[in-house]
């Protein structure tokens, strides 16, 4: 459908015989002929209405499983006032008219809310104006309903299709009026994923399913130590394999895209995979070969033994407070590297020609891929067409475009369309991991058992340090404004990044996936020290007064204690938190990130071997206005399962500079038997909508660990949880 996207707004071009969506219209046709031809009304790049009453809404962002191919069009459809069942949603390609197109930071809903409402409302207002003109009445005497403009005076009506041709002649209003949210018919309801039918029949196109005439398939063997180089290679066995066409040495780009290695290009995937296996490469591992998990942990400890290099916050007088108040706990928390392992392994297609290039595949950052392709090939960006397929999971992995760089580099060299396909081993070995970290915490209670001092000294590998970003290395690793900062009179936060060759990247709920575990676990420790109920303790810290707390990191600029307290209270109530039952153990955690408030309760029981089993998880979520209820619930459920899986099993360890895990036998994933029942409550809200792709994940590890403490008295300070140690 990318052909469609090239057609500029209100251009009248005659195209015949393309696809089943019913294209297009009459350029240079006589007036009489035009009436019979199919015409389209395109007030903007987001939607298109045909004189045959076809309604197409373009999905602007990459669909990585977060549901935006459904939820973003819902916003347009609402304001356009059309019947959801009568529209067709088409994935757009990269197109500057659509604004920023990426998947990251749970931003799609909140940053597009206004734009998409405007897009839909503009279309509707032009259709109403057209009808009013035809009837020679005022626009206020007309109204739109489910794809029809109606005349209040005489109940006459025009379908949108009947108005499409003439509506195209009007000027597009810049600030059309929006619906009153109380009149929403689509927003706030449950709409099923627009690609569901294609997905369940195997016809949905993911990146790995893209095909192009003459396309070859490539695999790339890269140095398992980041930064390593090919010293020499022997491809004699590879070249004996049927179907292998080229073996190419790929040089480093000098960027974080890890492309250096040896590529095997073949007629089909299996030949390319076999060819890669048959390669004999001698690597120059470089400095990274001495890196290990033990070495990184040692660096953490060296840093944590002294004050952090970067002071992030220093309220009150922490030293005096610790001197004065002896009721205190000091603890070290730890989180491991995690791999992203989206189910669709990394792959990408590129067709690089002399001065133009077409690419397609799974990415969270199509605009970045375009810039990257331009940098590699020297082809100007306007000549690089970026198509978007469905993406078989992102989780932050596909914010990096190294695998796209593979395809672009290889196609550029062999001048043929190429699909690069990574194995699962490649995926885990060449990943940019969730940063590992150790966190020294100390907190004290005053004589009234109130939290009076909180000290965090954190040392982690840093995503921003790794990629050479201008941003401070602590950014997206720790959050100086996160709870309980601002509520504790004496509060200090320090940070030291560990420089390592092991790549760090953004992993679903970056930073929060670690800090919510440590903060919400340590709060629980302090509550127990104070002999207070963990929920009451949190509410006591937040105080009776409702405040807007400053929050400088992404997700701010402020957060509301009223909304945070509200989700905590609802979760306590819905889970019967304060009701104690024999053999039933509960853990609590609540966290704010990216604009949304989530509280979770894990309930577990102990089996005959005293091993904990999760009975259920309850989540209360305030994300403002909910666009798609089914999609929202899905994201919350999925985030909980994903976060639990990471807490139970997720760990990448490093030896000799290489990841020691390389497939699902060594990198364990949560499976159906471990997935608990989940009950989700969405807070009814009129606040502006926030995203939901990440927010239910970060605190589940703490809720789980706190429940384990309630059941066994064993405090989990290190992930993943070792159940054998808990039950012993």
């Amino acid at each position, binding site marked *: 459908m990318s052909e469609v996207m090239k057609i500029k707004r209100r251009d009248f071009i005659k195209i015949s015989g393309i696809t089943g969506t019913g294209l297009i219209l009459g350029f240079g046709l006589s007036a009489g002929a035009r009436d019979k031809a199919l015409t389209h009304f395109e007030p903007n790049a987001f939607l298109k209405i045909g004189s045959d009453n076809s309604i197409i809404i373009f999905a602007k962002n990459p669909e990585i499983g977060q549901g935006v191919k459904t939820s973003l069009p819902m916003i347009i459809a609402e304001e356009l006032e059309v019947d959801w069942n009568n529209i067709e949603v088409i994935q757009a390609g990269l197109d500057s008219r659509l604004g920023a197109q990426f998947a990251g930071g749970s931003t799609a809903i909140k940053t597009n809310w206004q734009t998409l409402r405007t897009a839909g409302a503009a279309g509707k207002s032009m259709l109403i104006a057209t009808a009013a003109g035809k009837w020679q009445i005022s626009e206020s005497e007309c109204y739109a309903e489910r794809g029809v403009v109606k005349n209040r005076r005489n109940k006459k009506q025009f379908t949108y299709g009947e108005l499409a041709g003439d509506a195209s002649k009007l000027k597009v209003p810049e600030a059309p009026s929006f619906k009153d949210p109380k009149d929403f018919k689509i927003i706030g309801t449950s709409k099923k994923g627009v690609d569901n039918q294609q997905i369940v029949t195997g016809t949905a196109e993911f990146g790995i399913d893209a095909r192009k005439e003459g396309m070859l398939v490539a695999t790339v063997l890269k140095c398992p130590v980041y930064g390593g180089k090919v010293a020499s290679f022997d491809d004699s066995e590879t070249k004996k394999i049927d179907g292998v066409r080229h073996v190419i040495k790929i040089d480093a780009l000098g960027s974080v895209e890890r492309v250096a290695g040896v590529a095997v290009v073949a007629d089909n995937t299996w030949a390319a995979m076999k060819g890669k296996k048959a390669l004999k490469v001698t690597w120059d591992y470089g400095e990274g070969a001495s890196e290990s998990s033990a070495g990184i942990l040692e660096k953490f400890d060296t840093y944590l033994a002294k004050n952090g290099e970067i002071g992030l916050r220093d309220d009150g007088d922490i030293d005096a407070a610790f001197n004065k108040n002896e009721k205190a706990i000091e603890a070290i928390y730890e989180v491991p590297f995690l791999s992203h392992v989206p189910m669709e392994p990394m792959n990408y297609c590129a067709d690089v020609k002399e001065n133009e290039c077409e690419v397609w595949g799974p990415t969270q950052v199509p605009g970045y891929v375009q810039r990257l392709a331009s940098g590699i090939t020297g082809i100007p960006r306007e000549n690089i067409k970026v198509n978007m397929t469905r993406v078989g999971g992102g989780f932050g992995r596909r914010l990096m475009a190294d695998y796209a760089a593979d395809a672009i580099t290889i196609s550029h060299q062999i001048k043929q369309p190429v699909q690069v396909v990574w194995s699962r081993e490649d995926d885990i070995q060449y990943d940019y991991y969730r940063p590992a970290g150790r966190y020294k915490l100390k907190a004290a209670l005053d004589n009234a058992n109130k939290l009076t001092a909180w000290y965090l000294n954190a040392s982690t590998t840093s995503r921003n340090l790794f990629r050479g970003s201008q941003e401070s290395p602590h950014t997206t690793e720790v959050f100086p404004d996160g709870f309980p900062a601002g509520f504790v009179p004496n509060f200090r936060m320090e940070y030291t990044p560990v420089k390592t060759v092991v790549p760090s990247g953004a992993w679903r709920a970056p930073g929060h996936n670690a800090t919510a575990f440590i903060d919400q676990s340590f709060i629980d420790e302090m509550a127990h020290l104070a002999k207070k109920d963990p929920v009451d303790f949190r509410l006591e810290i937040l105080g009776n007064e409702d405040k807007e707390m400053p929050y400088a990191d992404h997700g701010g600029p402020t957060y509301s204690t009223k909304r945070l307290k509200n989700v905590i209270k609802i979760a306590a109530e819905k889970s019967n938190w304060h009701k104690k039952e024999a053999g039933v153990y509960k853990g609590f955690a609540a966290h704010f990130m990216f604009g949304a408030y989530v509280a979770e309760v894990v309930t577990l029981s102990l089996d005959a071997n005293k091993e904990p089993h999760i009975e259920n998880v309850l989540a209360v979520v305030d994300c403002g206005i909910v666009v798609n209820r089914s999609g929202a619930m899905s994201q919350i459920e999925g985030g909980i*399962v994903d976060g639990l899986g990471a807490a139970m099993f997720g760990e990448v360890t490093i030896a000799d500079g290489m990841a020691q895990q390389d497939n699902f036998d060594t990198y364990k994933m949560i499976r159906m038997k471990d997935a608990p029942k989940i009950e989700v409550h969405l807070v009814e809200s009129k606040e502006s909508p926030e995203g939901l792709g990440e927010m239910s994940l970060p605190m589940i590890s703490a809720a789980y660990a706190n429940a384990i403490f309630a059941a066994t008295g064993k405090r989990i300070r290190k992930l993943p949880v070792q159940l054998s140690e808990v039950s012993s």
Partner: protein
Amino acid sequence: MAQFSLNINAQTYNIDVSPDTPLLWVLRDTLGLKGTKFGCGKALCGACTVHLDGNAIRSCSFPVSAVKGKVVTIEGLSEKGDHPLQLAWQEVDVPQCGYCQTGQIMSAAALLQRNPSPTDKDIDMAMSGNICRCGTYLRIRKAIHTAAKGGADE
């Protein structure tokens, strides 16, 4: 290279491929049946699940030379995409990214063939070879129950 005659989705295909080629890549690359997905290459994740004589197998680790019997892929599970599981999956709105779901459905279909009304435990056992990174397990379980009950929701 060697000649093979395969019965896939009740159709006969004569192909010429390397005998060690996994069935997965024959389906995807040779025959263009791309609904069966590549996930791990080692029979660990279930994304490539198809049926061989009614049993769920991992096609990524099943060489084409060993295929003796009738293969059914997601494309052949039902004529019109209306297998009770395919309908239930849509009704329950299971997919997030959607990549693993064809493999999940094929595993579930094999389960229902031998056990038309599975318990939660039966489902957990039968489906634990299939990974969903998005965490749609709860909806998968619900969709299997829905399909088992003939489409009626709980």
